[in-house]
Structures are given as structure tokens and as C-alpha cells.
């Protein structure tokens, strides 16, 4: 089942997505089932279908794991609080991939 959601990028990650800071998507589970998609499904989709930039390693490592230094926030909550990669995306969710800043 396709779920509408908004993906946002910050901390420089937007550079990998044609400087788009906010993208509206309608996403299905990647196994083609009726299940709602998870964060992993979203990450795969972003890598395979959306990312313009070839430097995939700035977003994911070891396949489709979000790389260290990138916080994933789902509706203003740390993904760690809601199941991380296995979180099942709900209609209207806002998912922010925020690269940690270090400058001062």
C-alpha cells in the first residue's frame, strides 16, 4: 500500500539530493506486498530512485544502513524511540535525515 510522506534533509545532506530540502513521496513496501513501507524501504528508494549524487557513501554504508553521523527524525522524534529502520511509515509522516554538524 502506497503511503504519502515528506522526506527532509539538513546539515548538508540536501547536496546529495539536488539541493532539495523537502520531497513529497508516495512509497510502497519494496517487497511489493500490501504492507506499509518501513524506513529501510524509504532509504532504499532514496538511494535507487531519488539520489542524484554518486557519492552514496555520504548517506548509507554497508548496503542501506544510514551512515554514522546522520540522525533520523520521524515527526520530531529520534528514530531510536520508534523502532529505527523497522519503523512502519504512516500516512503524512515527516522524516528528516539530519547530518550532525561539528563546526563552532
Amino acid at each position, binding site marked *: 500500500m502506497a503511503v504519502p510522506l515528506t522526506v527532509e534533509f539538513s546539515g548538508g545532506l540536501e547536496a546529495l539530493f539536488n539541493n532539495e530540502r523537502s520531497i513529497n513521496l508516495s512509497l510502497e513496501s519494496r517487497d511489493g506486498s500490501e504492507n506499509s513501507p518501513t524506513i529501510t524501504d524509504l532509504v532504499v528508494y532514496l538511494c535507487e530512485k531519488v539520489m542524484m549524487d554518486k557519492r552514496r557513501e555520504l548517506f548509507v554504508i554497508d548496503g542501506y544502513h544510514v551512515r554514522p553521523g546522520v540522525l533520523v527524525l520521524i515527526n520530531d522524534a529520534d528514530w531510536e524511540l520508534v523502532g529505527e529502520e523497522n519503523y512502519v511509515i504512516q500516512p503524512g509522516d515527516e522524516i528528516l535525515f539530519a547530518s550532525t554538524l561539528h*563546526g563552532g
Partner: protein
Amino acid sequence: GDIAVPELDLEEYVRYGRQMLVPEVGKRGQIALKQTKVLVVGAGGLGCPALLYLSGAGFGTIGIVDHDTVSLSNLPRQTLYSTASIGKLKVDAAVDELRSRNANVKYVSHPVAVRHDNIFEIVRHYDIVLDCTDTPMTRYLLGDATRLLSKPLVSASALRTEAQLVVLNMGAEGPCYRCVFPDPPEHVQACSDAGIIGPVVAVAGVLQSLEAIKLASGHNGGQPPTMTFFSAIHGRPWRCVRIRGRQKSCSVCGDAPTVSESDITTGKYDYADFCGGSLDSNQY
């Protein structure tokens, strides 16, 4: 024996009067500030505004850690420094400037870089620590040392048109730096500077001083841990997000920690190795 609770003299009543009029501070809070020692690590774009307002607020002791000297390119955002400061040690120029504004505060200069072999000895003497540094390595060092010494850490960062801020080590179940950022980012690009707009880093530094005032005056605790994201030009300007608590798997504060104070001070735990290529500020 008991340490006498400091009173305020007439000059302080006048000086801090408007701050004391705020019920959340009051005389009680002002005296609490006077009894608090705050350490600012880094006297740059974050540290300068933080220091100005910590000094203005009347903390008892303010320590400043920075080994750097003032450069012309610092001046737009490192607002404690004048053109006459160029070439001087930042800690010296900073203390001069701050003391001219508030001589009630005891200023302590630490003209050194934070390293694994000096950080515990410095941090130990303070109650609250502000991370105003600019590399992953210093951030992990400070994160670990403050956690192991049980000091609240107000950590902020900024780059280009964005800033982030989080208060760490709050209570037994609050997250430490490693709980939130267990792995350092990989260094994948050549060293180049991504730039910064003055007010962006200044907002973060000012908010750091605010968090320190809240901590010292008893207004920061009990709430679930949050992180603040600021974006000056694009997208939603402000987000305050709920973040995770202490992670059982954390190598510093988890149920089976693998990094101790002596591991760090002896150099047995190798930060250069841990941070790998990410010794410099992040960039895309």
C-alpha cells in the same frame, strides 16, 4: 565544614537586578549562579557569544579553554575580539574583554588544546561544561570526559546556515554524546571550509549560555531529552525533537562500558584512531 552561602553586595543587586526580577531566577537563582563554575571549551564562534552572556549573568567562575590566537577572519563572529586582538591568545583577549564588563566573575584561562591527557584534570573543577569546539575528536573527548565525571554538557554546533544544540549527561538516564552519536562520521572529502554566517553560530552560542543559566538556577531537569535544530534560510526554521535516552549499549555509559577515565588519560583509548579521517569539521 559548611561553605558559607554567598550573599550579594549592592553592586551585584544593581547589576543583576533585572535578571533577578525574573521569577524563574530570583535572588535564589542569582546566588546559585554565583556558586556555579562553568567551563567553555572553545573561544570561537560559539564560545564568544556564550562567554559574553555567561559573564553578564554572573556565574561565579568561568573557565575558558582555547590554544588558538586571534585571526582577522575570526572577527565577524568571534565577537569578543577586536582588530587590536589579532595575534593575541584568544583566552587572554577574551578574559580582558569579559573582565572589563564584569569583574565580579573569576575567569580562569586554559591556553591549551583539549587532549586526552589534560581533559579530565580541567573538567573536574567545573560544574557545567559547554562544548564550543569544532571537530569530531574534541566533541567525543568532551562527551566522554563529562559523562565519566558526571558533568552536564551543553553541546552545540553550526555550519553554513544551520545550527544544532543538545544538553547531555542529565541524570542517570539521560543520553551522553556517544549515546546519540555512537560512531563518528567518516572523513570522505578533502579539507575545505564550508563557511558560516555569524548570527547562525551566535544563536547557538547564546542558547548554550541560556541552558547553562537554566541548569545552574534549577530549571533544566526532569524533562525528556531534546535536541534543537535551527535552519536560517531554508525549510522549517526551528525544530525541537525528542531524542533517545541513555543507551544500554553505550561504550561509555551503557550497562557494560568499555571506555574508562584511565583508558582515556593513559592514551590506551585512541581517539585519533576512533575518529579516523574525521579529525576535521564535516563538509559536503
